[in-house]
């Protein structure tokens, strides 16, 4: 049952920012927000809908040769966009693996980046640390879906987004509009580790709105992908996922960005894997070493140690996709 709130649908971005009072929330697609409100996780007095802001919808080429994706562009539109598919297959694959067709039609890229965690203690009637309580229930409780990296022994959520890992791997930035100024934040710096603030998911200030996601131009050598393993085959968040962005010269990796989902409270960049493959031929030995490296520094809990092996297997499988077929 939703609590009482007022609903505002501004027609310009400035109006939207102005409407964001201290007790207001932004509603993009609303697919996550309404659930949070129904469950009493967020109790805003005012909901500011970005629905009418057509200027925040759509995908365009940037003068530099990259792409700008309006924050209100739906996940479904990103998944099927030819430019996204040809330039950033990792992002397209991520978008395609979000939730279900209905939710992809409703959910937006801006909303997807600002999702609340799916931890069942956070969503349930538990006074958990992230909601202002003293305790992370996942730590001693039922944590088979929870984080093995970056939890700082404070909060064990995994970041739920399937678009954030590919965006981080592709060096994307978000443009943010605030009451005073605009700013640009690399997606890699958008999300917040528990040790920094266990009660926030992003670095956005309360009155800031993401307006665009900007992707840099891609070189011909860039290969990107996103792979997600889930408990059931659709409409589910990642048990483990990986976004790869590899600069390849033949079968040699010139540069790599490897970002994990289902791993940590934020999209988790695995520099251990990157180090193992950069400058190396992507052959069996390199792949085996990279797979072994992904589990380095993992801090699983009692019931989610399987995730370390899952990441290992998945990295092995995913990297093998970028080896030339006829090799060996």
């Amino acid at each position: 049952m939703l609590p009482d709130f007022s609903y505002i649908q501004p027609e310009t971005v400035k109006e939207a920012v102005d409407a964001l009072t201290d007790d207001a929330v932004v509603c993009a697609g609303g697919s996550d927000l309404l659930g949070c409100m129904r469950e009493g996780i967020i109790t805003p007095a005012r909901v500011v809908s970005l629905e009418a802001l057509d200027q925040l919808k759509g995908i365009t080429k940037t003068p530099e040769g990259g792409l700008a994706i309006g924050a209100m562009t739906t996940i479904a539109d990103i998944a099927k966009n030819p430019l996204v598919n040809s330039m950033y297959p990792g992002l397209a694959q991520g978008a395609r693996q979000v939730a279900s067709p209905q939710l992809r039609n409703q959910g937006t890229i801006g909303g997807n980046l600002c999702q609340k965690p799916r931890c069942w203690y956070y969503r349930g009637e538990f006074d958990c640390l992230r909601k202002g309580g003293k305790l992370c229930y996942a730590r001693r409780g039922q944590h088979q879906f929870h984080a093995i990296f970056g939890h700082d022994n404070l909060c064990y959520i995994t970041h739920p987004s399937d678009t954030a890992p590919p965006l981080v791997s592709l060096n994307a930035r978000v443009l943010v509009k605030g009451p005073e100024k605009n700013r640009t934040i690399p997606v890699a710096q958008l999300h917040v580790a528990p040790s920094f603030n266990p009660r926030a998911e992003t670095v956005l200030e309360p009155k800031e709105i993401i307006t665009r996601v900007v992707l840099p131009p891609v070189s011909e050598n860039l290969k990107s992908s996103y792979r997600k393993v889930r408990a059931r085959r659709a409409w589910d968040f990642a048990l483990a996922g990986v976004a790869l962005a590899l600069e390849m010269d033949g079968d040699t990796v010139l540069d790599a960005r490897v970002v994990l989902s289902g791993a940590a409270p934020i999209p988790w960049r695995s520099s251990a894997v990157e180090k193992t493959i950069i400058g190396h031929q992507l052959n069996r030995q390199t792949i085996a070493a990279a797979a072994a490296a992904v589990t380095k520094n993992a801090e699983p809990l009692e019931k989610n140690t399987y995730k370390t092996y899952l990441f290992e297997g998945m990295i092995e499988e995913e990297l093998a996709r970028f080896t030339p077929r006829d090799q060996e």
Partner: protein
Amino acid sequence: MAEQKNSYYTQGLSVPETPAPGEEPAFWKQTHVVGKRLPRVDAYERVSGAAVYPSDITLPNMIYGAVLRCPHPHANVTKVDVSRAKKMPGVRAVITGQTPEAKKLKWKYNDYSGPLFDTHCRFEGEAVAAVAADTHFQAWDAVRAIDVAYEVLPFVADHNKALSDDAPDIHDSGNLVGTDEYERGDVARGFDAADVVLEQEYHTQSELHTPMELHGCVAGWDKDRLTLWESTQGVYAVQSEIAEILNLPLSKVRVIGHYMGGGFGSKLKPGKYTVLAALLARQSGRPVKLILTREETYLCTGNRPASTMHLKAGVKKDGTLTACDFTCTGPSGAYPAGGTALVDWQIRDLYACDNVRCASKDVYINAGPARPFRAPGHPQASWALEQMMDDLADKIGMDPVALRLKNIPEISQGRNQPYTTTGLKQCIEKGAEQFGWKKAVERAKAHNQTDTHIKRGVGMGACVWFVGGGGPPSTVIIKLFRDGSVNLNMGASDIGTGTKTVMAMVAAEELGVAPEVIQIEHADTETTQYATPSGGSKTVPTESPTVRNAAIAVKRQLLEMASEDLNVPASDLDYEGAQIISRNDKNKRIKVTDVSRLKKRGVVVGVGYRGPNPPKKSVNPFAAQFCELAVNTKTGEMQILRFLSANDSGRVLDRLTYDNQVFGGIVMGIGFGMTEFRQLDARQTGRLCNRNWHDYKLPTALDVPVDMESLPIEIDDPEANNTGTKGLGEPVTIPTAAAIANALFMATGIRFTRAPVNPIEMRRHLTAKKEG
């Protein structure tokens, strides 16, 4: 009235011979409507949204109910202060354990009876108070304004710890609900005679009922008469319980349940919500709609209880089973609710074995009480038995199909009497043949020899369902109007399986009319006839013979009437298509719609009753299922590639709804085997973790194979009943999960004894296997 083109077949389609008065109808040799693929008679209403479910009911002046529920798994309520809630806007009724109307009322769980509002709350979600207000929102605001204090008590959430010394007592009598024991032959001697003896512990999880339509009702009073629009599997079952609880004559309780969105066993009876809605309606003087939220249904409207099973079995080298020793512990939940009900039936009855011992222990835990869940107990034991059969086969070097065929019993060993028919052998044999079992096994094994981390497996399982023969009582009335159109009146609910369609087909078959002109009137205690609830896979074998009897009663009367027109005795008359003719003088004939007394009366009313089942025989359906799947041994992901279900459920009435039942059963079995589990926060708060559709994982379209095949094994069973039908709804889901587990074993070499096997469980075991 003009003759309707389709009312009566005019092409001279044969109508079954009308038995003489007092004679039983002959078994249908050949059918014209029955057995075809007929879309549902109410498909348009269901798809267009015109069908009115209880959740859709709105009445003038109707208000909304909401229930305050205990948030702790175990607590004493020490204070309930509703003074603030009562003053809230729109609030018209508030009831608690102190409300005079509620104070004296009892609520039952099996043989347990307690106060409607018990201050000792034994599970999360137990009702503490209820309100009704002009809007949903006001009702929930008022619920939140009730001031309750709890003394939180220690809880036990794990059925394996329920009987330990340090577990808190949930009831004064302790935490043992009851035990059940069974023995035949001499198990010890059986094991001595075996060449191979294996034993294994198996676990299955608790599944939560998730019918599309939520549990609930609309209750309204008209002076001293209560009307309930309830989402239920049986309107008469709701009527009788509510009349008893509220101390009303049955005639003063009307229950209507024309459409309902699924129950799977959880809607065989009214809920406490039904009583609360009636009380709120009486206090407010308004109709009250009380439909639970999904979170509430997950807490308190039932589940398939978890199980911990141990099975020891012995086999000779030639495949003869020599002994089975089975134990099971399962939780009823917080009140007696059949925590281990029927769990050992597969062991007792499915495969021939002279020496069998079963013992089960039903215990209390601080969680919502169980309710029957599609084939109660059966998929659990199937999970154990069918995996054990495969292990035994492996140990003696026998094919799993061959081992099962070696152990087909001749009689029902559990009841020590013959079956009317058993298609177990044919289900396994023909199913294996149609599935291409041998080739599939070879193909999978050859594939697994290649250098790939995607492994393949095929697996199978068979089953018997405990009941499925139906039986009395049942009464059906068929009215044939003077234009030849038909009204069929029965009390049974169509729980989504196609009951209305199937019964229209039976009436059409017997009367020779088109199914389209049959109007069904059903599931209303005031206007339709007594029926037991639709459950236990018994609606078709119970109601279809009754429908046939009612149709025959119509035909007999018409023959009597026609004898006046034709001046020949009725015994000389029978049907020829839409005409009644003399057997001795084919020139004496009359169209049914021309029969004088029918035209004058306007209608012929036939009453049918369900006759008894054959004495000292069991009527049971059987099935065998086969599946093929792939496993990604790096990630633990699995994909089911195909499924085949061979079912002996007697005669197929509607092949379309039959196949859909089969596919639905497989889907549900995939949920049991691979995706669904109730997660309690057992180590901390005891509360339910997964109470929404993300966290409680039902299988999606992508978890289910496109390639599903239904293979009916139709064996004439004239002894079972006059339509030769047996139940289908439950056997279709019994061996599914076990067949999956057996296929997973072939793919990975891992025995998955703990259900469900999702990628988490798979990945854990792949690691454990690697590390040895």
